[in-house]
């Protein structure tokens, strides 16, 4: 997918601005929280990466569906770029979540709805990327697209499956009916900035990764037709 020339630099600029703002808010402006103390600062990273790791799966699934419909390689590039970033972001979510939970709740891990879904999401990304290692060409794009789409019912069903069981992950406090329930406005600003920053970083990296994937494709084609030496 060819993106306009100005999009990359614009995204880069936005990323720098929001990243600086996020760092300033989360380390300087945000006061320690009443119960969590300084550990609230972990959440500015955790919430942003969690949101983006789910967004990445949606993007991967959209890319996969569009690829199966149109068979245009750009959609496969979108899917794989998003999946790779999704794996990284899910890892970050699990690590920061564990650190936060250990320091505030006293456990590293519990088999609890949201944690389990996120771990499963991690496994899905891993399976997707491993599958791509063992296949080539259009066949790789097709089977990985099918896997990405087959993962959707899994995530949806799990959402319902785990909501029957106990809940230990804190409920949403910023986006919920009746408005934010945090005492200082800076907490809300920090969490929102975290989400914005991670989304921008995700978009920027997906664009860069898609360019790389397209160039790899072009190189492979050039080598296959013998126009340049392998």
């Amino acid at each position, binding site marked *: 997918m060819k993106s306009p020339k100005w999009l990359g630099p614009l995204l880069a600029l936005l990323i720098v601005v929001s990243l600086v703002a996020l760092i300033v808010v989360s380390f300087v402006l945000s006061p320690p929280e009443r119960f969590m103390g300084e550990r609230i600062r972990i959440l500015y990273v955790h919430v942003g990466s969690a949101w983006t790791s789910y967004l990445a799966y949606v993007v991967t699934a959209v890319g996969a569906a569009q690829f199966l419909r149109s068979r245009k390689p750009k959609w496969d590039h979108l899917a794989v770029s998003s999946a790779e970033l999704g794996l990284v972001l899910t890892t970050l979510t699990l690590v920061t979540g564990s650190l936060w939970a250990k320091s505030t709740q006293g456990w590293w891990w519990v088999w609890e709805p949201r944690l389990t879904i996120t771990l499963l999401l991690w496994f899905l990304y891993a399976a997707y990327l*491993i599958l791509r290692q*063992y296949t080539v060409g259009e066949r790789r794009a097709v*089977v990985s697209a099918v896997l990405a789409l*087959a*993962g959707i019912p899994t995530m949806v069903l799990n959402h319902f499956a785990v909501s029957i069981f106990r809940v230990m992950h804190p409920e949403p406090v910023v986006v919920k009916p009746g408005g934010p329930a945090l005492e200082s406005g800076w907490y809300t600003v920090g969490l929102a900035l975290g989400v914005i920053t991670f989304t921008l970083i995700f978009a920027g990296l997906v664009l860069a990764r898609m360019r790389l994937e397209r160039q790899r494709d072009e190189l492979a084609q050039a080598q296959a037709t013998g126009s340049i030496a392998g």
Partner: protein
Amino acid sequence: MAAGTRAREVLLPVLMFPLVVPLVAPVVDATRLAMQGAAISDLAELMALICAYDVAYLVAGFLAFSHVLEGQ
């Protein structure tokens, strides 16, 4: 999806695991409840999940089949 790839034996469990978890979890829980003598109405939610899984993957299988097995 693992059929036709070079390392199908290795790949199958890797691909299967995330896809069967939403089936295994409610099945295990339903079995546990049934063994403890729970009423059938207590199992309704779990049975609904299991049925939803069946329907979802039956449909997914029909839709995906031609894509997965093309060119073999």
